[in-house]
């Protein structure tokens, strides 16, 4: 089933991401403090290189110094503009993830449980899946115009596929013995779905959710950059046209920060909802 899951994800939060640094540090017997210091040193070196490059090229338009980016970041944060744009993008993201979950998860259960539904619907999914969300932007611009609906549509489209495919995989991967046991004990079908299939599929669905988020987050930038008058993606392009490079860089940092914190939040959700699947969720 792996094949279906990976294709469109720009950040493969996939079957075995390399171990997190903290984990690697633990394995190596390194105390967390030391690993934190190493991280700090890496960033220091990175910023030093950036600074040196900026000083060397001496072209603040193309490569502003870290200090000017920090100043821009501060002023954007203080006057609330960055927060506004981040909230706009985040709201769109949340709405589309909500729609995608409501559409894709039940459909995934249907397709995973019923061979016949799968035979009818799966070909349609396979026809649509290779068409990336980005490719829908021009057509969606015609249909929805420039505004809020376009990014939400694009993100929902992008998020649906990993969710759907992971739900199907999760439902099908339910332990056969558990099913047989429940059936032997005369548990009705609806309760089997509720109490056996659902918990069994949840870890895979959660992975699908993270993949869906990764895809959607990458698509929202494109959608906002091209067809929206607000949001983080719009802001970076806006400041590029004004040739205010430090603000462009500041917004790029903001995009990374929001994306990163959402993924951390999803991981936390994953741990809370499926504590039993820790570490084995992708085995």
């Amino acid at each position, binding site marked *: 089933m792996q094949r279906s899951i990976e294709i469109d994800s720009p950040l493969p939060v996939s079957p075995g*991401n390399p171990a997190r640094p903290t984990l690697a540090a633990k394995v190596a017997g390194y105390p967390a403090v030391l690993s934190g210091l190493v991280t700090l040193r890496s960033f220091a070196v990175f910023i030093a290189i950036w600074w040196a490059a900026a000083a060397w090229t001496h072209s603040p338009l193309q490569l502003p110094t870290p200090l000017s980016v920090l100043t821009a970041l501060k002023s954007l944060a203080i006057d609330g503009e960055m927060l506004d744009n981040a909230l706009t993008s985040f709201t769109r993201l949340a709405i589309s993830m909500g729609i995608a979950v409501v559409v894709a998860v039940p459909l995934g259960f249907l397709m995973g449980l019923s061979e016949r539904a799968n*035979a009818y619907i799966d070909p349609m999914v396979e026809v649509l899946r290779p068409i990336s969300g980005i490719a829908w932007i021009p057509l969606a611009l015609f249909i929805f115009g420039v505004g809020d609906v376009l990014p939400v549509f694009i993100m929902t489209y992008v998020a649906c596929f990993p969710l759907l495919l992971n739900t199907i995989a999760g439902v099908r991967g339910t332990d056969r013995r558990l099913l047989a046991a429940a059936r032997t004990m005369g548990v009705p079908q609806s309760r089997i779905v509720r109490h056996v299939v659902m918990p069994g599929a949840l870890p895979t669905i959660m992975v699908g959710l993270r993949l869906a988020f990764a895809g959607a987050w990458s698509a929202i930038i494109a959608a906002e950059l091209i067809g929206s008058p607000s949001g983080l993606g719009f802001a970076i392009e806006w400041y590029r046209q004004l040739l205010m490079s430090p603000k462009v860089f500041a917004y790029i940092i903001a995009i990374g920060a929001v994306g990163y914190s959402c993924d951390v939040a999803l991981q936390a959700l994953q741990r809370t909802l499926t504590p039993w699947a820790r570490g084995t969720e992708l085995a």
Partner: protein
Amino acid sequence: MSATLALSSAGRRTPDMLRAIALPITLLVAWQLWAMTLPDDTRAPSPASVVAAFVRLCASGNLPISLAQSFGRVLVGFAIGLVLGVSLGTLMGASRAVRRNIEPIIESFRPIAPMAVLPIAILWFGTGTPAGLSIVGYAAFFPMLLSTAQGVSRTDRNLVQAARTMGVSRFRILAKVIVPAALPSILLGARLGMGVAWTAIIAAELAVGAKSGGGSSGGIGQMMFIFYSYSIDMNGIVVCMIVVGVVALFIDRLFRIAERHLIPWRQ
């Protein structure tokens, strides 16, 4: 994996093929019928006019040229991402010290979508091919790097130690032990990376077209943008979308076939 719960009685009355095409065909027919109810001068696309647009675009040579442009950019950009990703990934996978030092930087760049760096690419390289290449390279770099690092770090230690005991040189260990062991991961990364790269080039061309008033970038993405903003040709846009999908499918299948041939021991 193919086991299903078979809640519904498995009806085998309808042949598989017919079931597979039932929904797509129904939707196509519904779309065509809907389009026929519209006035004649409508700009709304219909299956028949999409086919006509496809023939027209192929005959004029616009579509093949744009496709070649986009695909060429993907290949070059992907090659850049591949070389950087595989070399750095091998270092990261082989040495824990390198990994510990580089990983924080990599992890902080990873949530920055390729499209977000497009404005910088335009500032640095203008609106031409180099900007597209850098976006594609950036997009393909991360899956390549992560898969390679993972594959290399999961190499069987016993094999490496055995080779070392027998006095095999470091370079030969890399070429004969580590690379073959990591190959499945590297190929998986390449497939993912190529898929992302193809999406990224369309996005980049589209955005360059949209943000530089047409520009001179060329490619499928820009073609879509021109259909959107100048010629208002929705049929052309749908043709481009289908082409984008078919190419993505083609790339995916190609890599799967390559995987089957290059790593026959991993079926």
